């Protein structure tokens, strides 16, 4: 019945809404399209292919949403969807793509960017055009050459500038001496033959523009034109070394000869499952990884259990109408939750400093001994768990207080009449009911802590370091902080976005599975569908 009414009204409304609203929307869409067109054109000019694609997708989507009347519900979330695509979905797709590539140090460029760079490399060929030369030097120590070719043409060559024809007496060129060579160039002094021949720097300087036309000194009497060393053959996807005829094949983003010589820079290439295989089989990576994964499960498990236990205990102890100062106690106990996490964590880092921190100074004066937090692995892990208990219990205190109030008191009265003890009431009534109510939150808290980057990283950057690990890995590192180090902190091996992305995907598979399990477990899906 009510559905019928709504449907009739819906029809009415879409008719009524049509003229003015529709016109406004069309104008807005046109204005937006003009802006988007300009933006995309600029992006095309700059060569930002991915940006062009995303903005294109968003523009098409918005046009469809606002021009097709049936897409009306999506108008309500048009802005949200655009941001979602831009800053959430695209980065996820990017991460998945990168996981299958070798993106990282030595492979930061695309192939289109790398090949021109490789082709700029020149060498001094045996044959090639040769010149006689005279060297000049200025006060700043820069060199210039006066070149004469076999046909008598004369040129000025400087590093990084195009070689240009010149005659003695031109502007900036001194008068010719007896052999037709200018005595000076503008700002440069001529070097005498002996000085020039013994100069140690001169033979290593490439004059002219690299990759176009260059000249290098070969002997005291001869300078020769530099030649391009590597030539790329698109048909076979190989590079041929002109100096010795070596053939370099494209092997996973690096041009490599059969006997293993390589050309730098490499470039981004799809390498399939190499990153995934690497981190499960490479012994250097596997060593720390087993530790990290083990800790990555211990840390959230203990954190969730301890914060939940303390939060629930507080809720039960003080959720009593006869309790005096209830509100005051709760406010005080809530304080850890109200301080920005970064500040709390740095604060604890100071207090747990093994040398100067208040906790260790106190322990030492009382017991003559204090744990080396941040230095000993086991104590570092304890410290992290302690800090996370402090950070996390107020949340469960709030949640379980709410849940406790929803348990009807007559259940307890009935239990009391049946002679059940306080412990039995807790064990048989409170705990099961609370678990049903906050079960999903326990799992959500587990997932949150599984990826609790801020705590691990801000506390002691995942340290203390695991001895002998090939990558930067510490005893309190979890996968996500390890990923951060691989991706952004080049520790010896350089940044490795590919490997880091692969680990991110593994992390996603783990927490994604847990989350799906949670939904099934809590019937969240059914609830959504039932409202449909």
């Amino acid at each position, binding site marked *: 019945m009510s559905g019928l009414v*709504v449907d009739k*009204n819906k029809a009415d*409304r879409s008719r*009524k809404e049509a003229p003015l609203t529709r016109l406004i929307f069309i104008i807005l869409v046109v204005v937006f399209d003009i802006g988007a067109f300009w933006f995309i054109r*600029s*992006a095309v000019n*700059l060569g930002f292919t991915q940006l062009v694609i995303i903005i294109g997708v968003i523009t098409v989507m918005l046009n469809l949403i606002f021009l097709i009347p049936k897409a009306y*519900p999506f108008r309500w*979330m048009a802005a*949200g969807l655009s*941001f*979602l695509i*831009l*800053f959430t*979905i*695209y*980065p*996820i797709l990017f*991460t998945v793509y990168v996981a299958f590539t070798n993106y990282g140090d030595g492979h930061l460029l695309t192939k289109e960017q790398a090949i021109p760079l490789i082709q700029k490399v020149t060498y001094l060929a045996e044959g090639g055009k040769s010149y006689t030369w005279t060297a000049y030097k200025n006060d700043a120590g820069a060199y210039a050459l006066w070149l004469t070719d076999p046909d008598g043409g004369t040129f000025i060559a400087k590093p990084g500038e195009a070689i240009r024809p010149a005659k003695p007496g031109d502007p900036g060129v001194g008068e010719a001496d007896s052999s037709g060579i200018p005595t000076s160039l503008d700002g440069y002094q001529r070097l005498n033959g002996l000085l020039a021949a013994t100069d140690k720097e001169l033979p290593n300087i490439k004059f002219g523009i690299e990759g176009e036309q260059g000249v290098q000194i070969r002997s005291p009497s001869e300078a020769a034109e530099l030649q391009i060393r590597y030539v790329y053959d698109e048909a076979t996807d190989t590079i041929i070394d002109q100096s010795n005829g070596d053939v370099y094949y494209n092997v996973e983003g690096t041009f490599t000869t059969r006997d293993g010589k390589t050309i730098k820079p490499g470039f981004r290439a799809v390498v399939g499952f190499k990153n995934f295989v690497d981190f499960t089989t490479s012994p250097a990576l596997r060593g720390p990884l087993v530790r990290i994964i083990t800790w990555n499960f211990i840390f959230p498990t203990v954190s969730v259990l301890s914060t939940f236990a303390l939060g629930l205990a*507080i809720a039960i*102890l*003080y959720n*009593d109408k*006869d*309790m005096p*100062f209830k509100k005051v*106690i709760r406010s*005080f*106990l*809530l*304080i850890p*939750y*109200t301080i*920005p996490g*970064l*500040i709390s964590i740095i*604060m604890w*880092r*100071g*207090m747990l*400093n093994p*040398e*100067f921190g*208040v906790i260790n100074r106190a322990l030492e004066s009382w017991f003559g001994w204090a744990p080396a937090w941040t230095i000993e692995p086991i104590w570092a892990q304890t410290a992290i768990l302690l800090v996370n208990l402090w950070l996390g219990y107020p949340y469960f205190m709030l949640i379980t207080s709410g*849940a406790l109030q929803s348990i009807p008191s007559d259940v307890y009265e009935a239990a009391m009449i049946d002679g059940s003890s306080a412990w039995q009431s807790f064990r048989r009534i409170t705990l099961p009911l609370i678990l049903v109510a*906050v079960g*999903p939150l326990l799992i959500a808290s587990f997932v949150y802590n599984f990826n609790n*980057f801020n705590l691990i990283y*801000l506390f002691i950057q995942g340290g203390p370091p695991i001895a002998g690990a090939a990558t930067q890995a510490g005893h309190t590192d979890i996968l*996500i902080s390890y*990923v951060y180090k691989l991706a*952004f902190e080049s520790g010896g091996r350089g940044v490795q*976005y590919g490997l880091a992305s692969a680990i*991110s995907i593994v*992390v*996603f598979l783990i*927490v*994604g599975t847990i989350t799906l399990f949670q939904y099934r477990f809590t019937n969240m899906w059914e609830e959504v*569908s039932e409202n*449909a």
Partner: protein
Amino acid sequence: MLSVMQSYNDLRSSQKFRKRFSIWVRLFIALFLIFFSIFPVLWIISASFDNSQSLATQTLIPANAGLNNYRDLFGLNPDYQFGDLYYWKWVWNSVKVAAITTVLSISITTMAAYAFSRLRFTGRVTMLKGILLIQVFPNLLALVAIYLLVFQFGEIIPAIGLNTHAGLILVYLGGSMGLNIWLMKGFMDTIPRAIDESGMMDGATHFQIFWRLLLPLLRPMLVVIGILSFIGTYGDFILARILLTDVNKYTLMVGLQIFTAGQFDKKWGVFAAGALIGALPILITYLALQDQIAGGLTQGAVKE
């Protein structure tokens, strides 16, 4: 008869006694818990007034109390030399970014939640599920992609590029289609449909129903989500750290984090002063509105 009365009175007084005893024990435990909960805060307060400024010599009641740390923090001490400080600038940046982000993201969230709660369309359930699942993707690596995106934006429109607050806000808005939609939708579902239908009978459009009828009813939830979103943005450090490079563009969290790197034990006092001022407004807001916030959290999360 008498003996029954006697034993009844005994029982009552013993129950009363046990009740009293248990309350005293619980108050005693509460003292311990409160000590655990506020000691770090007391310690920070004490450190901020300790003129010796060092982690190593600090005592709970500072031996030479004074305002030196605050003077350093506000740049009133010309001899100060441990790292760049633009404290009020950072606070202002944080408040500005968090406030703008909150207003925009709440608008986006609420409108989307309206569609999910009140309109029926294909893909609705799938989208709701997808929003939840996407949230658990470890988006740390997305930082590379986000950095590149914002860099490329900046090449075309410098005002939203790297090292701009506008760029940072845009990236924060990317998270507005998140869990808050569930919170808001859940709350909207509790508002009876009859209200909408009465509006429809009077010929109101969806937008009018949303704006005139639902929005006023949503105010408590808007306050809660707004505060949570403000605090979340205010406390974020990793995105801001990656996108902002100028020391006077930093948000407070980035500024404090970078400030504490290196020679931490010598900067302790100044950090304490900065942390205290930075945390206090949030702490007060929370404590003042704890009932509403607790209500909001429970509302969205706990299944009755």
